[in-house]
């Protein structure tokens, strides 16, 4: 009896020892073998932030792509990401003027008012749970998706997290890095005299666009008030509650700006001509928290001539990336 007691006791010790190191054990994911993928991008781009628990795989990206284009994502199966975000328009959306899905793998702040910070996974959780209110049961009842999720994440029961993670993987491939301007910087093409003058306007204090829209991503990763209105929309203030953030919005990328009308957080401008005219003559100097970078606001703006305006727009159009808008690996796979 004592021996049995001892055997039982030391058996328990063994179980404890194994359980004590649970964090080291191979998890449920050891039953699947997704194919690792390296996301390639030019060396002058920033390091892409990719969480350790969602490293890119062929299966994960393919799954995210299928979901991006599938109305099963929405509660009533009436819309997908692609219902609004059109690849031929650089994944922008005309209707709601939400920010275009361009190079978001290098972002850590999302939406015009900066509501989400962190990796893409975080904002994708919002999209699944709150924006689309995805009926996850429907995905679990779909044998095709059950197979795809099993292959990508090794799961038998699909969760909101799995959906968000797959979407994040696809978003990290929505990369625009090969515009005419990129080719010019690599010495592969020339710019026209008009484009070159626009380039000079953009990158000098003539137009002073570069302070907010500089870097290879054509934004500065900050928030600012560009003086659209004397009484602006709240913007970042709605998130921080700090009055000094009132009227500030996320600086959008200018890559593919030719295709991503309408412009500004509220989509008030239909054309680039209207936008440049605003920065030339329409800046409201007395808008609260107006960015110090709106250097010429006392005079309404940078006051570009008609010719300079056209040259600047010609330059902005060199940021259009047709290899992005026609990339077959980003199109509807369904």
């Amino acid at each position, binding site marked *: 009896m004592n021996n049995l007691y*001892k055997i039982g006791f*030391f058996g328990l*010790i063994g179980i*404890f*020892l194994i359980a*004590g190191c649970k*964090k080291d054990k191979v998890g449920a994911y050891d039953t699947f073998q997704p194919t690792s993928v390296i996301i390639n991008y030019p060396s002058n781009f920033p390091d892409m932030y990719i969480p350790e628990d969602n490293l890119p795989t062929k299966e994960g990206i393919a799954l995210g792509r299928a979901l991006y284009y599938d109305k099963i994502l929405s509660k009533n199966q009436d819309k997908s990401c692609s219902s609004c975000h059109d690849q031929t328009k650089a994944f922008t959306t005309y209707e709601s003027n939400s920010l275009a899905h361009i190079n978001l793998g290098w972002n850590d702040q999302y939406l015009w008012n900066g509501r989400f910070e962190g990796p893409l996974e975080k904002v994708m959780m919002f999209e699944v749970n709150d924006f689309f209110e995805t009926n996850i049961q429907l995905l679990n009842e779909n044998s095709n998706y059950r197979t795809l999720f099993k292959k990508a994440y090794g799961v038998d029961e699909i969760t909101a997290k799995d959906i968000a993670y797959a979407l994040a993987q696809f978003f990290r491939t929505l990369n625009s890095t090969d515009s005419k301007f990129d080719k010019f910087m690599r010495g592969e093409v020339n710019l026209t005299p008009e484009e070159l003058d626009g380039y000079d306007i953009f990158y000098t204090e003539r137009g002073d666009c570069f302070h907010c829209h500089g870097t*290879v991503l054509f934004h500065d990763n900050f928030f600012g008030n560009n003086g659209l209105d004397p009484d602006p929309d709240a913007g970042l203030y709605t998130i921080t509650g700090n009055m000094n953030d009132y009227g500030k919005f996320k600086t959008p990328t200018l890559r593919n700006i030719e295709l991503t009308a309408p412009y500004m957080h509220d989509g008030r401008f239909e054309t680039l001509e209207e936008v440049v005219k605003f920065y030339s003559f329409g800046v409201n100097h007395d808008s609260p928290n107006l960015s*110090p970078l709106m250097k010429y606001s006392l005079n309404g703006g940078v006051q570009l001539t008609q010719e300079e305006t056209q040259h600047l727009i010609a330059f902005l159009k060199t940021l259009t990336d047709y290899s992005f808008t026609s990339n077959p690996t980003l199109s509807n796979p369904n």
Partner: protein
Amino acid sequence: MKNTASHRFKTTSLLLLTSFILLITSFLSSCNKDNPDPTPNPTIVESYLKFKHQVDNQPVVFDTVMYINDFGNNFSIETIRYFISNVAFVKSNGSIVNIYDAIYVDGRLEAYKQKKITKAIANGDYTEIRFTFGLDSEMNQTGAFNNFPEAAMEWPMMMGGGYHYMKLEGRYENQNMYNHFNFHTGPLNNNKNYFQVALPMSLKVTNGSFDVSLAMEIQNWFKNPNSFDLTTIAQGMMGDQNKQELVKNNGFNVFSVE
């Protein structure tokens, strides 16, 4: 019988206690690989170079026009971002110890108001800190800093490329009107515009680590030797070497060691 039962109970209890101790010991040792090596490594330390930003010797209050500069302009501070590089400490015997290559500072963000340095330095008495305000020509190449926030300090290629050394921004008031000022310094074509700062300090290092605070007195950017009227110098600094030179000459006196 009673004694025997009691003895058995005691033996069993002792066995249980011993087993429990063994269990705990085994449990801990089995996960040993997750525990840090208890032996301290003398070459790895936690040293800090901290950056403080002051106006009139008080911590800067951002976004409020509440200060008066030497010339008499009322002003506020909204942005203070800059690079220092080639940071080195000088020992009392004259030997120089390199501390860090390039440090980006943002006066508004805690994460960029201190630099953690893990490499231990030699013990002894240090009497001076030296650094370059800005980035020297070797470091200041477009593409050297691809990641945010440093990348956003970019200085246009047509002005020589590289990065801004400093963005000091705010607003000033003049006759019931306000306007912005942008002290943007950097390399303008062939003019390097970075400069060397050497400050006395009294630092005794005994365990390879240090905690040194550099304080920037923002008022000093506007005076000594050049007292600036912000209405005349506030804008167009990037492309104006004369303004770059004037600001640079004020920069030698803005830092002190705390």
